[in-house]
């Protein structure tokens, strides 16, 4: 029997397999890692095809009356789970190659915790209520802390402190408080189409919305974004899957899901009389893009770009109309494929050419054609240019702002896209066209890593053609 719980537990099972195989049977460990990812993906696809039969909540445990650990299948979670599930085996292959190239000693711990993190992302995706969501949100926080501090260097440890400090402070002080408020004043903690806050007044709803938006620190809405650039001390696969896909997307996905199923568009309408709220993510979009332009460290630049892109999704959630919701959901997927490619490329440049600053990239294009080619394609997707999937999510988001009549926000989206175009394409441009006289020979000598980044870049292009299917899935939600 394949249920959402299966998809949540398979990665945890994978963690056990990885630990059991250990460093001594490293081949077995690597194979079981990739195999777990593939099985998990297959399970997700089966669930997606058969989604009609999983509409009922699947209750695993009832901790207290009203506090249930339960899963259900709905379009938003399905798209998030599929995105993470599709990228996981690819990242596993990349991670195996990367960790071998780095001659890391703690590979078993690394891979096992990676599985746990993916499992908790699945838990967030399929959570049927706020308690389950919060539970897996916190497991995700704690399981990624050892990954951020993986190198055990003083800067990694202090970055880990910022990471945990920001995420825990926001989640305990604001997110949990918001969950408590919903638990005590809302109808139920469960996610219901149309919302569960019938009896709450507009001002209380506004406060609650702010608690969620800032309390879900993983969405990195300014001023609670500092953990994300700090987390970049982690090995590249962690930055790629976790800090471009699983962790940050778990944050924005939570905000999106809560705005659709806990607030409901009608409740949000009453809040949106305060237009200022919509400008919170808008300010983050612009500021983060501006900061990204000034970063020379390639991973820091990508991190600030992520902060900016995450707020696109938050903005879409706050616009409270169907077009924006479709845009936000699509952007979870489109940005995931684009950004993971960029991080794969950054890691590959680090491993193959031992370079991490943008100013050192000149002339690397000839030595690493696949890497910089993929980088260019992914940059186009992040900026929202054809022929990549990123076009469609930005399109829907833009339509969403128009439907709300917010020309100012539309302008923000457009300006930020221009900034993206500038600071992202500058990197392959330098590699291909500047300082080309240096001949370094061909550097891309690890097939698994190159294959991974080419795959994700290719999927970014494919998504240009299949976006309508995803959009169709989202419109199944009754709002």
């Amino acid at each position, binding site marked *: 029997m394949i249920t959402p719980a299966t998809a949540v537990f398979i990665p945890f099972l994978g963690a056990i397999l990885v630990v059991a195989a250990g460093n001594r049977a490293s081949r077995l460990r690597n194979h079981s890692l990739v195999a777990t990812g593939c099985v998990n993906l297959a399970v997700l696809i089966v669930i997606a095809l058969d989604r009609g039969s999983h509409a009922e909540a699947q209750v695993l445990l009832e901790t207290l009356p009203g506090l249930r650990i339960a899963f259900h299948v709905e379009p938003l979670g399905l798209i998030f789970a599929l995105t993470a599930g599709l990228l996981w085996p690819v990242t596993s292959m990349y991670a195996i190659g990367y960790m071998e190239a780095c001659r890391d000693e703690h590979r078993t711990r690394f891979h096992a915790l990676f599985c746990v993190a993916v499992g908790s992302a699945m838990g967030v995706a399929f959570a049927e209520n706020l308690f389950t969501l*919060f539970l897996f949100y*916190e*497991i995700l926080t704690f399981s990624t802390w050892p990954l951020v501090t993986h190198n055990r260097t003083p800067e990694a440890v202090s970055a880990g402190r910022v990471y945990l400090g920001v995420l825990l402070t926001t989640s305990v002080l604001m997110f949990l*408080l918001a969950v408590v408020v919903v638990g005590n004043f809302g109808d139920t903690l469960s996610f219901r189409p149309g919302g569960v806050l019938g009896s709450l007044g507009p001002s209380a709803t506004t406060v609650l919305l702010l608690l969620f938006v800032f309390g879900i620190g993983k969405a990195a809405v300014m001023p609670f974004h500092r953990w994300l650039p700090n987390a970049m001390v982690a090995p590249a696969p962690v930055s790629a899957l976790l800090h471009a896909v699983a962790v940050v997307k778990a944050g924005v996905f939570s905000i999106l899901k809560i705005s659709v199923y806990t607030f409901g568009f009608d409740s949000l309408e009453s809040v949106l009389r305060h237009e200022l709220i919509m400008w919170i993510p808008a300010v983050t979009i612009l500021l983060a893009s501006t900061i990204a332009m000034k970063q020379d460290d390639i991973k820091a630049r990508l991190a600030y770009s992520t902060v900016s892109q995450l707020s696109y999704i938050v903005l879409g959630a706050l616009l409270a109309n169907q077009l924006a919701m479709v845009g936000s959901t699509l952007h979870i997927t489109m940005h995931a494929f684009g950004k993971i490619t960029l991080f794969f490329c950054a890691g590959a440049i680090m491993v193959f050419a031992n370079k991490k600053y943008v100013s050192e990239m000149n002339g690397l294009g000839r030595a690493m054609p696949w890497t910089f080619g993929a980088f260019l394609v992914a940059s186009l997707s992040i900026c929202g240019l054809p022929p990549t999937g990123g076009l469609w999510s930005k399109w829907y988001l833009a339509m969403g702002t128009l439907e709300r009549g917010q020309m100012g926000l539309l302008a923000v989206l457009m300006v930020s896209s221009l900034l993206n175009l500038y600071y992202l394409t500058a990197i392959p441009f330098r590699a291909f066209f500047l300082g080309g006289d240096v001949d370094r020979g061909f550097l891309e000598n690890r097939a698994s890593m190159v294959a991974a980044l080419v795959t994700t870049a290719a999927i970014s292009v494919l998504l240009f053609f299949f976006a309508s299917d995803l959009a169709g899935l989202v419109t199944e939600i009754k709002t």
Partner: protein
Amino acid sequence: MDSLIPALENHLPILQVIVPLLIAPFCMILGSRRLARGIMVLTAGIMLAITLGLASLTLQQPVITYDLGGWAAPWGIEYRVDMLTVFILFTINLVHMLASVFCLGRQDGNLGTAARPAFYTAWLLCIAGLNGMVVTNDAFNVFVFLEISSLATYTLISCGREPLALLSAFRYLVAGAVGATFILLSIGLLYMQTGTLNISDLSRVIAERGSDRTIILALAFFIIGVGVKCAVFPLHDWLPNAYRFAPDSVTVLLSGTATKVALYVLIRFLHDLFGADFGFAEMPLDMVLVVTAIFGLLLVPFIALRESNLKRMFAWSSVAQVSYIVMGIGLGTRLGIEAALLHLFNHAIVKTAIFMAVGIIIARTGTARIRHLGGMAHRHRFASCIMLFGGLSLIGLPGTVGFVSKWVLVTAVVDKGWWWLAIPILAGSLASAAYVWRIVEIMWTKPAVLKPEAPAARLHWVEWLPLSVLAGLALWFGLNASLITGLASSAALGLLNPGG
């Protein structure tokens, strides 16, 4: 045999107390340390069995009374067992059972040369006194058992190996004596005004004649006196050093039993003796308790954060956690008491497990200094993981028992209409995250400071077995808390509506 069991059944309330009391001297008389240890564990098992027997009796009959020596109350001493009593008895006897097994460990890092048979006598007297305080329905009897357990506790603490153990035992003696005297004064004033010592009778008389200044004074004396024994902030001064210098097994025992029983006495006296109307409607006791609790749970974690000794750090954490229980009691509502009882049980099992894990590490490395902990997680995996799990529960993360009790507490404050209290509760959780994670960071990411001890000491079953039981319970009740919540809920209901 068939006639023996029903005969014993009627005497279970007194057996709970008299068994350890009678057996205790034998540990000393027999003079053999091995025998004494065996006797101790056996007694602990018998006491847990008696508690379970009492529990099954209360399922049939909510209140069991027992007249000592056949003298009827209010003239004689009455023992009274209801759901609340059973809840506390189960908590302390479970912890005692596991602590006794843990005490068998061949190397108790802090237990000095004093591990003579007399140590086990004091141990049994301590737990006998604590059980007595729980089952008796006689105010003066509470004081007597309080003194028995306190004197035994002073002895146990002074058995610590370090010289300062004597000083901290003495300081606890002074603080404890003041506390006990205050309680005695309170009981004396009550007796003066009412002429009775039976708790139910006292409650009836107070309700009939109304309160006067003497009764108010008695309440004040009682709150301060019992506050010292509970280590309620700011009356906690004795606790950190007492826990720090006591032998490890004694710390394990005390953290799960002593303060918990004092908290029980607080609940029992407030509701059954003084009456909730007097304490919470006439007197602003809710404000007093809640405000002290807020200070405790917000300030104490910062003291813990600066602590350099692992044992004392977790002792400070106990002071902070007691504040949550006091806050629940201070609400005075059914949900508040339910939250207090839940947190009492949860904290008892979690903190006992943590102190056991600390004890295991101290026994191996000979040090409890936090800066010596670097890299310890890789050398003592089991103990470190338990400490991590316990720490997560102290923070109150979902999936742990700490979350369950804090959730019920937050529901209780919202239910009373004091929803703003949710903010200090959550802030307190966050503050405890700071000191817990300081330890985790050192243990997992810092390089080792001490040379690996040789030979690598393996875990003995008396060490891992009780720890696993506690961890299993904590895990299970964290995920599926309906059983323990149901018990706490019916205990709270039984306290507030003794009739139905």
